[in-house]
C-alpha cells in the first residue's frame, strides 16, 4: 500500500524507475492497482446465452494507460462495466482485485464508494450522460457532496469552478451555471472529464471518449487527458475501436476479439510486431498514406455471433493462416517475446511476429507444413484403408491440391 502511494505521487520518470526496480525484484505485480483474473460475463437471453466476455485477465498499474481495442461486440465495454457493477442480470465469474478488494464480490453500498471515488468513468456520448435539466455546476457539486458529506454547497460549487478551469473551459465562473445543451460537444466531454476527476480517483475508465467528436476536438481532449494523467498519476483504461487513439496515448494494449484477448503487449510491439493475425489484419485494413489510391486489405467476413461461436479459435473463419489445429482447440495467451510482456493467443509459433517479409514467409511455411501434415495424415489414412502401404510418394503431392481447397 505504502509503495502504491509513493508511486502515485511520483513524477513519470520516477515512476518508470520504480516500475523497473519492481520488475528487477521479480514482482511486477507489487504495484498493480487493478488485477482482473479470468473474467467471464454472459447474458441469458431468449435466443441463448450471450458470451460477451470469455476469460479475460489483465493488470493495470498506477499511472499507466491500458488501451483496449476491439470491434463492436468484442466485449470491451461489457468488460469494464462489469467491474463497476453496471451490468445487471449478467452471469459473472472470475475476480477483479482493486486495491485489495474484489470488485465483483462487493455489495451495492461498498460499490457506491468505489464508483466515482476510486474509479470513475467517462462515457462516449456526453449529451446522454449529463442530465439535461440540471446545470453543469450542480451536477459536479452533487457528485462531490454525495461522496464527501462534510463539504458545504459553497465549497462544492467553488471546486466545480476550479475543475472546469482545469479542463480548459473558458470563463468557468459563468459557464458553471449553464445547462448541458449550452455546451458544445467538446465542452460537454470536458465537463464529463471534470466530473470524473472531481474526487481524485485512482483509475479512470474512458469508454470511447472521443468517438463522437471532430478530429480537432478529439486532439484537444486526448491532449487534456494525457496532461491531467501526468499531473495526477491516475491510471487510465482507454476503450476504443480507433487504433490511432491507442497509438497516441496508451502504454499497453489489449486487442479483444469475440470476448477474449487476442493479443496483449506494450504499445510498440502491437504496432510494429503484431503476432495475432487479427491484429495484423486490423493494422493492414486501415487506409494510410503509404497505400493511398491502392486497394485496401480488409479482413474477410464479419465478427461471429456471441451466442453461436465457432469451434476452436474464434477467429479461424476469417483467418488467412488457418490450419486444422485452429478448428479443434482454442489457443490461450502465450508469450511471443523473451521479455514475456508480449502475449498472443494464436497457434502460430512465437517467432512468427511482425509485418516484415521474413515473418510473412515464416508464417506461410508453418501453415504449409501444418496443412501438408494434415493432408499426409488424411492420405495415409485413406491408403491404409485401401490396404496399400508406403504413402510417402503421394503425400508429397497432396499439399498442393489441398491448399487450393482450403484457400
Amino acid at each position, binding site marked *: 500500500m505504502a509503495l502504491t502511494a509513493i508511486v502515485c505521487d511520483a513524477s513519470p520518470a520516477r515512476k518508470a524507475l520504480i516500475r523497473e526496480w519492481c520488475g528487477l525484484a521479480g514482482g511486477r505485480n507489487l504495484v498493480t492497482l487493478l488485477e482482473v483474473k479470468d473474467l467471464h460475463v454472459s447474458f441469458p437471453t431468449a435466443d441463448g446465452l450471450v458470451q460477451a466476455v470469455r476469460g479475460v485477465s489483465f493488470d493495470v498499474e498506477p499511472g499507466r494507460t491500458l488501451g483496449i481495442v476491439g*470491434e*463492436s461486440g468484442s466485449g470491451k465495454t461489457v468488460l469494464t462495466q462489469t467491474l463497476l457493477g453496471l451490468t445487471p442480470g449478467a452471469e459473472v465469474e472470475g475476480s477483479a482485485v482493486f486495491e485489495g478488494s474484489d470488485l465483483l464480490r462487493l455489495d451495492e453500498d461498498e460499490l457506491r464508494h468505489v464508483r466515482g471515488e476510486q474509479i470513475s468513468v467517462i462515457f462516449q456520448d456526453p449529451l446522454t450522460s449529463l442530465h439535461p435539466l440540471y446545470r453543469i455546476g450542480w451536477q459536479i457539486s452533487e457528485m462531490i457532496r454525495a461522496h464527501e458529506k462534510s463539504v458545504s454547497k459553497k465549497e462544492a460549487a467553488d471546486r466545480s469552478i476550479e475543475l472546469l478551469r482545469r479542463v480548459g473551459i*473558458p470563463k468557468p465562473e459563468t459557464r458553471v451555471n449553464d445547462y448541458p445543451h449550452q455546451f*458544445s*460537444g*467538446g*465542452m460537454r466531454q470536458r465537463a464529463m472529464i471534470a466530473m470524473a476527476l472531481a474526487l481524485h480517483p485512482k483509475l479512470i475508465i474512458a469508454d470511447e471518449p472521443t468517438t463522437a467528436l*471532430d*478530429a*480537432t*476536438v*478529439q*486532439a*484537444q481532449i*486526448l*491532449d487534456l487527458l494525457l496532461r491531467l494523467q501526468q499531473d495526477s498519476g491516475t491510471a487510465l483504461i482507454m476503450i476504443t*475501436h*480507433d*487504433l*490511432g*487513439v*491507442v*497509438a*497516441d496515448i496508451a502504454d499497453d494494449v489489449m486487442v479483444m476479439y469475440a470476448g477474449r484477448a487476442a493479443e496483449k503487449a506494450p*504499445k*510498440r510491439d502491437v*504496432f*510494429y510486431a503484431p503476432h495475432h493475425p487479427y491484429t495484423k*489484419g*486490423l*493494422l493492414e*485494413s*486501415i*487506409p*494510410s*498514406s503509404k*497505400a*493511398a*489510391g491502392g*486497394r*485496401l*486489405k*480488409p*479482413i*474477410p467476413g*464479419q*465478427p461471429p455471433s456471441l451466442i453461436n461461436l465457432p469451434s476452436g479459435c474464434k477467429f479461424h473463419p476469417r483467418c488467412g493462416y488457418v490450419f486444422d489445429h485452429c478448428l479443434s482447440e482454442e489457443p490461450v495467451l502465450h508469450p511471443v517475446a523473451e521479455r514475456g510482456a508480449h502475449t498472443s493467443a494464436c497457434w502460430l509459433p512465437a517467432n512468427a511476429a511482425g509485418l516484415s517479409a521474413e515473418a510473412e514467409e515464416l508464417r506461410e511455411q508453418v501453415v504449409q507444413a501444418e496443412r501438408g501434415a494434415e493432408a499426409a495424415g488424411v492420405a495415409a489414412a485413406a491408403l491404409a484403408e485401401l490396404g496399400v502401404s508406403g504413402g510417402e510418394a503421394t503425400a508429397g503431392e497432396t499439399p498442393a491440391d489441398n491448399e487450393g481447397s482450403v484457400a
Partner: protein
Amino acid sequence: MAQRTQQDDDVLVRVENAVKYFPVKAGGFIKHTVGQVHAVDDVSLVIERGKTLGLVGETGSGKSTLARCVAGLIPVTGGKVFLNGTDITKLSRGAMRPLRREVQMIFQDPYSSLNPRRRVGAIIGDPFAIHRTATGAERKRMVQELMERVGLNPEHYNRFPAEFSGGQRQRIGVARALALRPKLIICDEPVSALDVSIQAQVLNLLSDLQQEYGLSYLFIAHDLEVVRHVSDKVAVMYLGRIGEAAPAADLYDRPRHPYTVALLSAAPAADPDTAAARQRVILTGDVPSPIDPPAGCRFHPRCPKAQEICARVEPPLVRDNSTAQPAAEGQPPDDSGQPATDVPGGWAHVTACHFPVVPGENLATAGAAAGSAGKGAVA
C-alpha cells in the same frame, strides 16, 4: 460569372457561388425570422467525370448541406448548380425528375437509412418502381443482380434489414444507390459507422464500382485517411466556405491553409512513432456559430497565424504560387496577383488565406507564440 477553366466534357457537376441559408425563427404565434444560419456561403466547385472529390471539415461546416444542394434535395438560396450542363436550381419538379436518376446518395447510418419493416428486395427495387423502369420478374432479376454485384447473397432477397450486419446493410445502401446507374453518387460519411475491418471491405467495393461504371463520387467523411485513400481532389470546408482545395496528394503533403494544417495534425495516426514525432497544432476554442460568422477570414479567431488584416478582409481563394516565391512573413500577398479563377475540384491548389503556411513552417510552435500574443485581441 461563368468560369470555364476546364473542358466541360470532363465536368459532371459545376457548382457556382452556391449559397444556402436557413432562417432562424422566433416568436410564439407570429413567427419572424431573427437570423440566418449561413450553412453554405458562396461555394464553387467542380466534380469531374469518373473522379472522386473528397469533402472534409468539422461538424457544422456545411459539407452535408452542400451535398444536399448538389443532389437537388434542398433548394439553394443563391447560386447555380449545373449537372451535365443543366442548371438544376431553376427546374420544376417534373423537369427535375429524370435528372434525379443521375444523382444518388449513400447515407452514414446503415441502421436508420433503411426502413426496418420492408424487405431488402423491395428497398433495393424502389428506384425501379419510382422511375417505372422495370416490373415483376424483371425487377426481381435486376435487384438480385445488384445484390450479387455488391457482395450480398441474392437468396436473401426476402429478408429484413435487421437480419443483416452493419457492413451488409451499407452494401444494401450501395445497391440501392446503384440501381438506376447514376453518374454521381454522393457518399455522406459512408463508412464512419462501420468497424475498421468492415470499412475496408466497403471502400474496396466503392472503388471497384467506380472503375466498372465510371462513377463520380462526392465523398464526405471526417476521417482524413479515408478521404485521402479514395479521393482524387479534396476540398476543405470551414464554416460554410472552402478554405483550401487541391489534388489529394498535394493537399496532404503540402497543406497551405492553417486550418488544413491543424486538421491534418489532429488526425490520429495508427503508428506510435508518427504519433510521438508529430507536433500537434491544437486549436483553441470551438467552431464559431454559423448564425453570426466572424468577419474577414472565418478562421481568424482560432488561427495561430492571424493578423489584423484577417479580421477585416476576407481572403480570396487563389492558386498556389508559393513554390515559386513564398510570401514574406507579415506581408499580405499582392492582391493584383492571381485572380480567383481556379475552381475547387480542378487541378489547381487553391487556398483562401492571407498568410498561407509555407513548406517546413512549424505551426505548432508558431501557434504558441502568436496564439498567446493574438489571443487577447481576439478574445
